[in-house]
């Protein structure tokens, strides 16, 4: 039997539709799922040299001192067994790299209504945002590492071609022939995701047995979820979305060895007048309350400086964007 007043789900309330009155047009999920992100970096690896904190140092800059010792200079033959060589003293070779810490920040602004209407637990509120800021610091660290590496003098590959095994070999070659005796390992390559897939393609097309039958070559081709992509020819390969994009339509991927890049930091301590200050590793988060507008600013700060310490220990691996 046909009815004239059916109870329906739609939103036409005049004809018995329930949506927005008795039913929800969409039920939101209890859990907040994360969007794709990339906050991996090389901070806690020996590849990046930590040069200390600026806290209590009297400056925002740390000068990394370098000297040619322990075999940098070689001896010379004396002219004769009794010759006076006092005029042939050796000048000590010295160098330095300045790392400057600068303020990095992120600020969110949240109204009380948006906070209080959450489901509780791990729903988004000022504290959950504060926790998220620790991840923002790691992302910023990865970005600044990529920006610092973009100034390496030596380059391999080109902005106009995809990354190939040949380019990768050129990069290793550049590190191995760097100045005196080559740069000591371990080596690591940080590649943009697109560049990594190009390198994998190039690896698949390798015909030489020494390369194509190498176990590590096979490992490099297998898909991995995390940023570590495998070890290729003795180089740890990482994928990073924060490799610098240059303005010649290329990626500034990079290959480094220890002491190529270094970093310094500073953490605000004993901040007067701050009632809610959370110290989250290397960054601090404060809540700035605006009662007149019923909202809270969640402010994250970090003081960070990254830079090249020894240019010979790093290579820029260019590839087409």
């Amino acid at each position, binding site marked *: 039997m046909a009815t004239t007043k059916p109870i329906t789900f739609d939103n036409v309330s005049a004809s018995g539709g329930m949506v927005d009155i008795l039913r929800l047009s969409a039920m939101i999920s209890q859990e907040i799922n994360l969007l794709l992100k990339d906050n991996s970096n090389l901070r806690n690896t020996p590849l990046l040299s930590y040069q200390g904190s600026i806290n209590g140092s009297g400056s925002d800059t740390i000068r990394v001192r370098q000297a040619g010792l322990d075999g940098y200079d070689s001896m010379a033959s004396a002219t004769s067994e009794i010759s006076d060589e006092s005029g042939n003293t050796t000048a000590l070779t010295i160098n330095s790299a300045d790392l*400057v810490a600068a303020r990095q920040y992120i600020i969110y602004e949240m109204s009380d209504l948006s906070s209080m209407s959450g489901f509780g637990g791990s729903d988004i509120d000022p504290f959950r945002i504060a926790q998220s800021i620790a991840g923002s610091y790691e992302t910023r660290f990865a970005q600044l590492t990529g920006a610092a590496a973009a100034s390496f003098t030596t*380059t391999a590959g080109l902005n106009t071609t995809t990354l190939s095994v*040949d380019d990768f*070999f050129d990069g290793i070659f550049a590190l191995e022939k760097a100045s005196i005796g080559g740069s000591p390992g371990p080596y690591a390559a940080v590649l943009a995701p697109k560049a990594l897939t190009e390198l994998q393609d190039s690896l698949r097309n390798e015909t030489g047995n020494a390369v194509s039958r190498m176990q590590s070559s096979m490992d490099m081709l297998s898909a991995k979820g995390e940023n570590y992509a495998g070890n290729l020819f003795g180089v740890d390969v990482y994928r990073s979305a924060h490799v610098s994009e240059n303005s010649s339509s290329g990626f500034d991927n990079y290959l480094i060895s220890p002491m190529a890049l270094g970093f310094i930091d500073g953490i605000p301590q004993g901040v007067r007048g701050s009632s809610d200050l959370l110290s989250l590793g290397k960054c601090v988060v404060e809540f700035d309350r605006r009662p007149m507008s019923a909202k809270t600013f969640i402010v994250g700060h970090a003081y960070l400086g990254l*830079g090249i310490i020894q240019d010979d220990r790093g290579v820029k691996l260019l590839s087409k964007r």
Partner: protein
Amino acid sequence: MTDYTKYAQPWEQKTDVQTRIPKAANSRFFFAHNPENWELKIIEGIVMNDEGKKKKQKIPMLLPVLSSIHEIPGVNGTRAVGSRIDSSIMRTNLLDQGWTMLDPVQHDYVRVYPAHKGNYHTSKWIKLEKVGKRVIEHFDADGFDLWRIELMKTGALNTPHPQIASIRLISMSRAMARLERDQHIPEVANRLKSKQIELKNTKSAIARVDKMGKLAYEH
């Protein structure tokens, strides 16, 4: 396709809100060149033959590989001083290492777009378009090459030192040596052939610069 340069809706009053490109902001940059970094390009030019007649010819040229150096407080000695960015330490280090910096104002190559959380800085040879949910970048490689040739012609950048340019030959020879054993495979033979041509062209470009200096970039 969205044209971000002229965005307006005729039925609305104009607002102050600008259209922003769907890309994250980046910092300002300048181009710099280190005398070690060159790439081979084949440029179509007109040369005089032995009879004094003009003739079209493909000329191999070594063009400078330009690095985009971003000025970000906290990176390579750059700091924020008041409301400006002071990159003097970084610039001094670059000069010490023999880089030549190209002033963006003098050479007019930077373009700035309003973007997500600030401005997006890129070069004038990159055109941005939105297709679907992706921002596509079109790079005018020919225009960029012509500009680089102009930099060489005007002396803004020094010509490559033949000895430094020759370092490229070593890596090219290494790449060819890896292929030589497998040249019975047609695909490898093709790759080898293209690398041999590249090697020949690079040698020719080096010889041209060695002989003609800055004039090697006239075409």
